[in-house]
């Protein structure tokens, strides 16, 4: 199985099995789309760790998802620089245009929205990630244009 092979490769980079936990959770998240109980158990088994340890670690970190996500994940920064440059208006816009609330998913399953803490692009604020694509210098017009290219 591809999943186990990837984890084996990760294990080579760490002196013990738990070291491989964070990258393995990313692999599982890619494989399953989100981290379900089933995926915790798969990781636990692959790394020989108690499932509770796996879940306990996974739930600490904001970028592991514990419920199903839409096809595209919007991670929008609203931290100080982005806020000063107008990010709150963009949050309102997503609510009005797509019915998309922070932490929520659109009814058609197209987008999920997560409010993210500083994305490290304060010079080009407001900024966001859509999946792994970075977009900056957003305004009301631009964000819609960008999002419309994600189907």
């Amino acid at each position, binding site marked *: 199985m591809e999943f186990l092979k990837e984890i084996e490769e990760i294990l080579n980079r760490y002196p013990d099995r738990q070291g491989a936990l*964070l990258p393995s959770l990313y692999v599982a998240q890619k494989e399953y789309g989100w981290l379900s109980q089933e995926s915790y158990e798969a990781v636990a088994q692959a790394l020989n760790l108690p499932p509770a340890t796996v879940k306990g670690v996974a739930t600490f970190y904001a970028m592991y998802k514990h419920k199903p996500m839409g096809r595209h994940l919007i991670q929008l920064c609203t931290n100080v620089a982005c806020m000063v440059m107008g990010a709150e208006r963009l949050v309102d816009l997503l609510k009005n245009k797509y019915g998309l609330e922070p932490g929520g998913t659109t009814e058609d399953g197209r987008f999920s929205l997560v409010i993210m803490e500083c994305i490290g692009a304060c010079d080009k604020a407001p900024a966001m990630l859509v999946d792994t694509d970075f977009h900056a210098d957003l305004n009301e017009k631009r964000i819609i244009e960008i999002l419309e290219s994600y189907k």
Partner: protein
Amino acid sequence: MEKVLLKNIDNPDSARIEAYEKSGGYSGLKKAFEMEPKAIIEEVKRSGLRGRGGAGFPTGMKWDFASRDPKFPKYLLCNADEGEPGTFKDRPLLEKRPHLLIEGMIISAYALKAEYGYIYLRGEYPHAKVVLEEAIKEAYERGYLGDNILGKGVKFHLSVHQGAGAYICGEETALIESIEGKRGQPRIKPPFPVNVGAWGMPTVVNNVETLSNIPYIIEIGGEAYSQIGNPECPGPKLFSISCCVEKPGVYELPMGTPLKEIIYEHAGGIKGGRQLKAVIPGGISTPVLTPDKIDCPMDFVNLPKVGSMLGSGAIMVFDDTVCMVKVCWRAIKFFEHESCGKCTPCREGTGWMRSILERIEGGFGREGDIELLQDVAMSIAGKTFCPLGDGAANVVLSFIRSFTEEFDYHIKNKKCITQ
């Protein structure tokens, strides 16, 4: 000043090994391999380099401690978590100058006799991950990484460890926990990571920018390096400047460049010619400054004299249209979200401060709220394992101290002074 850290940054191939070698890259490494590991540590001590991650600890001294510990293997960890709001200075190094960092890490590892290294990269930088992994691959192919580097019998293995969205993992002991596959909660110090770090072994944690200075120090020598900028904390420094300025961005300038010069000359002044109201000089955790303080040189020794800190060198500029209560609220909302939950004062206190600020900002402030905020902040400061709680307390106390009138106005008039 000739650029050291951001050299060739405009070359579209700056991240590739050929371009890096062509501009003299990896020559510092070759020179370093002709030196004794101890001599490299001495050179770094002589350079006066202080850590660029925020705390400003002397790098040579840290290395000395780790190298004196007899335990092996040793680990070298690069802190690329860059989570401090306002900070985006490591990003160009990671995305455009990965080989400078890798060269710096190999030299450091050789000096420390560290055989394994990880770059702890924040999850929010997926592009940097691709660039770094490609660069590491190139470095292995050229024999700069592996079991027998350049045939000199030096062993160093390097990989990227991707974080997953937790600011606290930038704190060095939480970072170590996270690399070990645990929840990112800080450890008590002592013991310090230089003795008991990753997997219980001697470990050096250094910031991206710190490590990226190493090849240059080896190239020109510690003595020459110590003459750059403020001799008390010398070197080139990356400043990230954002919010209400004409030309936000990352600027490489000598340590000790006055804040005023950075804002008005390099960043083009206040946006739209408006009035300057406040500056956070070193990332959100550092105390806010009023415009009368901006003659201060930006370095580790001078900013404390005006009541703030250099931190990560992330300058956030606010003009007279920005509400200070709102900025304070958003900053504290961040700390509440990022508190790891280990220490009660920080876990509970950040939430209380956020909720008080929220009601003041929303026009529901009560008489006594300012004193209450100060009281909660004082109950956090100095009472937590790591400085995250201090950062949150700093924000509240410094905003209230510098903008008491504005907080008062908000409470009395149920609206903002800027409206």
